[in-house]
């Protein structure tokens, strides 16, 4: 994020003690290493202890299966048991569509709300508001609203569009809806942020040269937005991939929405098989990483360069 900090001027020298300083210190200071870096030490230590250590501990634990059977027994179990293996596809089947829908829907809304207009604050607040709902209210709302006696089915029945209530909760659709409600504000905020980061003079230049809105969108704005969209997609995918409470509450957690995080949680904290739980968490991390790398690699094929973002 701040790796672009290429300030050429040398940093101000640290206050030096009265005694003659050793030469090593000067040489280090020239490369930016001095006492000021001590300020970063608590943060780095904290993360090393509470993020890296647990991660590697979990990684090690995942190779020590509770039942024995060699270091890879947990991973073998996961990929050979169809009920466990299936969780991966179920989760991908939820996360990819949810991330796609959220990104695609965010683009036109972000385009429309990027300028300054009356009521912009109200509209952005309304769009961001679902962040405040929390999974339980969303779940309760979806169960009531989309349920067989809910307002949605009532309205469709009243309009004569359907003959009997649609089954929208306690299955795939309920979880997808929940992922969209909680994920859309997030992708909208990110897209809007990237969009407003594009220098408006580029678009004005294109307009001066006679490009109509279609051409400006196709050849100027979308290419500049593409890197931001790729990152938005990755982040919404990662959010949706870890879906846990809503799959339990509005889904069908034993069958069609038996997502991987439910299995990881149940293995670790209900069956107390921390080893298997850690192994599943590692598989989750690996799959997420793979998708993120794929998307970013594909993006770098399309476009290389800066968005003209932050200087």
């Amino acid at each position: 994020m701040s790796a672009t900090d290429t300030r050429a001027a040398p940093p101000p020298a640290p206050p030096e003690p009265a005694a003659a300083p050793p030469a090593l210190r000067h040489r280090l200071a020239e490369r930016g290493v001095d006492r000021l870096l001590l300020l970063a030490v608590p943060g780095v230590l904290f993360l090393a202890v509470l993020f890296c250590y647990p991660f590697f501990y979990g990684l090690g634990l995942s190779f020590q299966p509770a039942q024995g059977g060699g270091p890879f027994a947990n991973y073998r179990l996961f990929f050979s048991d169809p009920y466990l293996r299936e969780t991966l596809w179920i989760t991908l089947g939820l996360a990819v569509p949810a991330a796609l829908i959220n990104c695609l829907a965010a683009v036109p809304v972000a385009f429309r709300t990027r300028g300054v207009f009356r009521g912009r604050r109200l509209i952005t607040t309304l769009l961001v508001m679902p962040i405040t709902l929390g999974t339980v209210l969303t779940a309760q709302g979806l169960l009531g609203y989309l349920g067989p006696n809910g307002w949605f089915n009532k309205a469709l029945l009243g309009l004569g569009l359907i003959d009997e209530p649609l089954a929208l909760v306690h299955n795939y659709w309920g979880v997808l809806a929940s992922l969209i409600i909680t994920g859309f504000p997030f992708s909208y905020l990110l897209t809007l942020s990237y969009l407003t980061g594009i220098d408006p003079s580029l678009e004005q230049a294109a307009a001066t040269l006679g490009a109509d809105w279609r051409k400006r969108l196709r050849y100027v704005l979308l290419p500049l937005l593409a890197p931001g969209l790729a990152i938005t997609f990755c982040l919404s995918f990662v959010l949706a991939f870890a879906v846990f409470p809503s799959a339990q509450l509005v889904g069908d957690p034993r069958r069609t929405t038996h997502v991987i995080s439910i299995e990881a949680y149940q293995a670790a904290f209900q069956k107390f098989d921390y080893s298997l739980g850690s192994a599943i968490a590692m598989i989750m991390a690996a799959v997420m990483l793979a998708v993120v790398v794929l998307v970013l690699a594909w993006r770098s094929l399309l476009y290389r360069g800066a968005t003209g973002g932050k200087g």
Partner: protein
Amino acid sequence: MADLVRTPAAQAGTDPAAPSRWRRIRPGTWIAALVFGFFLLQLAGVIGVPLVDSLGTRWFTSWLPQGWTTKWYGSAWREFQLGQVFWTTALVSVLVVALSVVIGVPAAYALARRDFPGKKAVLLLFVLPILVPPLTYGIPLATVLYKFQLAGTLTGVVLANLVPSVPFVVLTMTPFIEQIDPRIEAAARMCGARTGSVLLRVLAPLLVPGILAASVLVLVRTVGMFELTFLTAGPDSQTLVVALYYAVFSAGIRTQQSIDAMAVMYTLSMLVLLVIALRFVNPTQLVTRVKEDRSA
């Protein structure tokens, strides 16, 4: 800005009786309005049901409940011991905000001011806990906390919530600090100020707006953080989100309405926090800031 760049078609319009206002609206606007309208309508339904339910007496298959009452709020407060839960939530959030600012701001300062070998690795260390969803590192983290008998305590909950919060403060504060001219500090040092007083008397006042913004965002995240608290909380260290989840899961004897009342209380408190956050932070500038940098 949309007004600055007029479409050539609109300028070249020869017809004095301009085409109707609706035809001139660009398709992008139509699509955006459709998406926006659809989203808001569904959202209203999703929020409306629990809200109406928490205020209604009996509600079966009709459009609205038979009567209205506020008694569910009182019974939810007693049934779920919400006084205790709100107190825990406030305590956890305040501790997390304070500690992450104390740990994060100095680190952000070092990262903003120095370019040192291995800086990329340190940045990666700070980015990863935000990029990776809490559940993946939460399971090993909770396992470790159980090993040290910290899980189930308030300390464990605070420690777990600090893991994404410290990097969040670092990453939001670094660009903020980069905008502050280092010559101001150089001047203070020339006048004889030591590091301590440069930090306290020169930088701290300049950083207050940024720290406030980061704190409010961390507060919103912590109050809403389900996974980490869920994995590490014991019966008396639950925050509101987790208590709410358990209320739904162990439903049975509880009435639907008092759960809905509790969910509405949660949403209201989050809404207040979000509105405060939006006062401090311009959501469009979370990632990029073009104009400010140009004029700076």
